[in-house]
């Protein structure tokens, strides 16, 4: 395994040497002239040489050209192009500030990328959304939510309202790596999944990789959601804010040192609890129920070659009620420090130091009578990354990452009449390392390839006790047959995996291309959850001597075509097939919480997912929007479950249709609407009843999981935005957004369950549960100055 890895590296480096030629390089940063924000993905085009590159996520670009006269055109959708003719006889640093097109300020833009990116970029299975688009989609309770918008894209589904997270191409929610400025976010939702933790005022750019994931990313099977925060305006101060029905937001950004350093600080807080003190009920009066989040970022341009960024997120949901007080709170905090360094015009590096923490606490009473239950996951990472712009035809990326994790899957400390006891699981520690290298290579005018390899090394380490379990009949709890204590950092179990990645693009015409990709991904963190919707109580556990790393192999093929000269319409068809190994499943009646012998409750199986995704987007004009349709299957095979036959996953949905439309009526009024349709998700119905001690227990004679489906889901949302007259200064902009969620008030089923009648438990009923059973109107006021 190691041999293979190193020989691959050598091979890659040899390739680099062969391509090397002596030329000159133009490099620099591309920025928004107004705010000083880096422009991700701006296009830098050398007219005579017919060569182009894109700016990276820090706005950095590098283009190597032969000596001589060149016309450089820097462009980005929504900005005036910048053109410069220069005589290239040495390496040149060219920083470019692009001005926003004045007429574009009014117009709706769906992406900020160059307009033919979907056809021309080598990436397939990628969805990029900028925050302006996200803000135009009608939102639940009027609160802009990027995760909800992602769920409208092809290949992305959800189990329903109230289900946190999202499912990508038949993967479970823990198979998405959610990064906020490089820091992983373990629970991306507030309020049991109704809202995501990302404050739209602080987000600059969102990119979702469903497949063809480049080698620099790893750690999860199914997708990468890369959320990038704004750097903050380094020219002048700006305030954004909004008042909604459920919460309000405020963000301030501005320069610390003009043109050199800027900050953004953005906060949100819910306020339904402000009404509690007016309640006549004593318990409600003293109750707490709120959530908040705070997103901050600082950056400092030290000099031409060095720039640093510091980003942080702190969010928490809290509830408390009753006497003695019962409290429950959970939240994420993340922090990342990044240092961009330009070694020379061809070599760019970024080193990140990352911290992320997710924890929850439940408690009642005090240390005479009471309990306190805590669970958390913390990680510390270091991640050096390098991009070497060898020549216009080869862009090489390489780097490493090392992460130390501390898992506390759950510990309950309780006091009973002053006596203290502890129960739950022991902490677990792991060290995960990865090395990667990749190259994006233009073979000729028509064919480009991106290839790379990622080597993942995962170590389950002490201190702690490793347990060993017996083999028994599948789907029966396994018992321990032994245990062994390991001291601090002593390796209990290691896993090494090699993850090849490959993407190929073939241009058929200027406006159409075929792309194909293969990638292998591994995952060593597993979210242990047995509920339909994930709950804040779910715990993350690492791969151990009993839990093997999850592996996935995905192949995808796509056809991309744009219509009209200005690429007004974008279309794509993609098909994919994904096989997953070592999928975590649970025995019937598994006890997953506070269980130190949790591994005995787990089984592992295989997964497979396949589908077809259609996408049609109108990106320009007064009317914009998209249509996405996904035909998909997600199945599982676990020895001992359902006669060891393939059966559908809980989130399997055959048909998924999303329609998103946005219409600009005039300068003052815009409309938005979405329509969502999806096949009902699988569920398990009983066949018989067992009467035991006057209780009626449901029973399924074949013990079959997911033997039925809940009815279809469909929903229409609409919104209207009214831009109010600017005040005289013209700087104060404000608008009112009126929206309605679930316009025709459909009681969309979330689940169907079976139980006894409230008054007579022996009379059994089927109950359909809808999280949202009514139309939800809302109004929000937003301002900016």
């Amino acid at each position, binding site marked *: 395994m190691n041999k293979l890895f190193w020989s691959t590296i050598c091979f890659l480096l040899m390739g680099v040497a062969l391509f090397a030629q002596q030329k000159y390089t133009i490099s620099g940063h591309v920025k928004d002239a107004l705010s000083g924000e880096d422009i991700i993905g701006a296009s830098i085009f050398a007219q005579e040489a017919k060569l182009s590159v894109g700016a990276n996520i820090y706005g950095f670009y590098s283009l190597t050209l032969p000596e001589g006269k060149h016309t450089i055109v820097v462009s980005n959708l929504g900005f005036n192009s910048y053109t410069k003719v220069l005589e290239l006889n040495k390496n040149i640093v060219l920083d470019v500030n692009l001005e926003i097109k004045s007429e574009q300020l009014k117009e709706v833009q769906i992406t900020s990328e160059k307009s033919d990116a979907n056809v021309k970029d080598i990436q397939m299975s990628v969805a990029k959304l900028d925050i302006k688009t996200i803000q135009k989609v009608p939102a639940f309770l009027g609160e802009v939510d990027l995760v909800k918008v992602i769920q409208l894209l092809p290949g992305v589904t959800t189990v329903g309202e109230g289900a946190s997270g999202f499912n990508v191409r038949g993967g479970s929610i823990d198979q998405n790596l959610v990064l906020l400025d490089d820091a992983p976010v373990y629970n991306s939702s507030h309020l049991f999944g109704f809202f995501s933790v990302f404050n739209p005022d602080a987000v600059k750019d969102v990119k979702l990789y469903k497949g063809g994931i480049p080698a620099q990313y790893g750690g999860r099977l199914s997708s990468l959601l890369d959320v990038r925060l704004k750097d903050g305006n380094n020219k002048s101060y700006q305030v954004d804010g909004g008042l909604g029905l459920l919460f309000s937001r405020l963000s301030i950004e501005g320069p610390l040192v003009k043109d050199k350093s800027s900050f953004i600080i953005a906060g949100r807080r819910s306020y339904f609890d402000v009404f509690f003190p007016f309640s006549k009920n004593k318990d409600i009066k003293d109750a707490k129920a709120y959530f908040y989040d705070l997103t901050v970022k600082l950056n400092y341009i030290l000099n031409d070659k060095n720039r640093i960024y510091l980003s942080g997120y702190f969010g928490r949901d809290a509830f408390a009620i009753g006497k003695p007080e019962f409290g429950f709170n959970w939240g994420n905090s993340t922090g990342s420090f990044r240092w961009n360094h330009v070694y020379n015009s061809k070599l760019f590096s970024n080193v990140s130091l990352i911290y992320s923490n997710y924890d929850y606490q439940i408690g009642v009473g005090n240390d005479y009578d009471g*309990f306190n239950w805590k669970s958390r996951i913390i990680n510390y990472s270091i991640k050096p990354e390098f991009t070497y712009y060898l020549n216009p035809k080869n862009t090489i990326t390489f780097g490493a990452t090392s992460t130390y994790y501390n898992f506390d899957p759950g510990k309950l400390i309780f006091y009973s009449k002053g006596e203290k*006891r502890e129960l739950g699981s022991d902490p677990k520690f792991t060290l995960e390392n990865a090395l990667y290298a990749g190259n994006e290579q233009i073979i000729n005018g028509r064919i480009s390839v991106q290839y790379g390899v990622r080597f993942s090394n995962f170590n389950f380490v002490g201190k702690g006790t490793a347990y060993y379990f017996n083999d028994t009949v599948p789907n029966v709890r396994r018992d321990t047959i032994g245990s062994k204590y390991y001291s601090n950092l002593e390796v209990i179990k290691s896993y090494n995996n090699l993850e090849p990645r490959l993407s190929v693009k073939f241009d058929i015409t200027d406006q159409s291309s075929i792309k194909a990709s293969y990638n292998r991904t591994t995952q060593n963190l597993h979210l242990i959850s047995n509920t339909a919707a994930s709950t804040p109580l779910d715990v993350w556990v690492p791969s151990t001597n009993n839990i093997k790393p999850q592996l996935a192999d995905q192949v995808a093929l796509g056809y991309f075509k744009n219509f009209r000269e200005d690429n007004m319409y974008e279309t794509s068809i993609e098909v994919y097939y994904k096989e997953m190994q070592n999928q975590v499943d649970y025995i019937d009646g598994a006890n997953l919480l506070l269980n130190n012998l949790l591994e005995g409750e787990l089984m592992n199986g295989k997964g497979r997912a396949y589908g077809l995704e259609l996408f049609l987007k109108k990106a320009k004009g007064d009317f914009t929007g998209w249509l996405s349709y996904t035909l998909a299957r997600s199945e599982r095979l676990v020895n001992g479950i359902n006669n060891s036959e393939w059966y559908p996953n809980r989130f399997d949905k055959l048909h998924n249709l999303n329609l998103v439309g946005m219409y600009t009526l005039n300068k003052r009024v815009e409309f938005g609407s979405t329509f969502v349709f999806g096949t009902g998700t699988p569920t398990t119905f009983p066949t018989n009843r067992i009467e035991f001690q006057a209780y009626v227990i449901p029973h399924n004679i074949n013990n079959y*999981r997911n033997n039925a489906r809940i009815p279809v889901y469909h929903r229409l949302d609409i919104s209207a935005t009214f831009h109010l007259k600017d005040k005289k200064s013209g700087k104060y902009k404000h608008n009112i957004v009126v929206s309605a969620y679930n316009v025709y008030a459909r009681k969309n089923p979330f689940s169907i369950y079976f139980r006894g009648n409230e008054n007579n438990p022996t009379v059994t009923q089927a109950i359909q549960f809808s999280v949202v059973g009514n139309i939800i109107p809302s109004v929000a006021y937003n301002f900016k100055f």
Partner: protein
Amino acid sequence: MKKLNSYLPILLFILSIAFYSCEKVIDVELQEGESQLVVDAFITFYYDSVALKTGVENQVIKLRKTAAYFNNAPAPPALGATVTVTDILKRTFVFKDDNNDGDYTYSGPFLLSFTNPPMGFPGNAYQLDIKYNGEEFTSQAYMDSVPLIDSLKFLFQEQAIQGPDTLRAGYTIDQMLTRDVDGLLTPTKDIPGEGTCYWFKSYKNDTLYSKPSQINLAYDAAFGPGSDSVAFIPPIVFNLTPRRLKLNDIVRIECWSIGLPAYYFLTLAQIQMTNEGLFATPPTNVPTNITNKNKDSKVKAVGWFGAASVSRITQVVK
């Protein structure tokens, strides 16, 4: 763990105001599986703290059949079975269905002597044998010890949160008390030894709180390993009074020491019967400890055969 979920409805109540979630009864067509034999039995032994007596009452083993899930008629009895229980003293007790209603009963004699103790006593173990419709089923159970409850302490509570399950102002059980070696009343504790499990049953004026959500189970003094031999923790005591009590209500608390396997069975049964809302888990069948002696037979039985020593306290709210 499941008990901690009992707080979640409070949170969900808050959420429901904001989110208009709703439930509705719907018609669903279910497939019906073939009928299976259901065993419903606990061999018991009572310690009654008020009457200051111990004893064995009639032992009943109920044999029923499964029915279609929506068939709301009483479960059909399994008639014509031969039912015996053999204990560690190699005594065999024959259970008879005299009323032809599926309740197979052993009603004595209950001799109490050192050499011939009653059928139920802590430390005894039982083997159940059933011959029914040409199949032979068997099961085993062990009877664990139980802590005595000598007194209940009541506490007056103001009206609590208004919600779907209103808790009006009234009395709750604040503590269960047991007389220690010095004769002092101290909070009732779990029997030493890990994995002693209990099922607390609460009665008001001789009526059992019989909703599935009111099944009150304990693993040691809490809900899992690590809580051995301390006083029962507040959520368990709290759940003894699902509804507030009035002065002069007659309260009866029974503590059934059911053993670990039955604890798992009942925990899962409770989850299956109260598996609702946003945090529902995938439905699964409850386990059974009834096996067909002929391993190759396709005919299976369901249900549970258990043994429990029971301590009982009856007290008037004062």
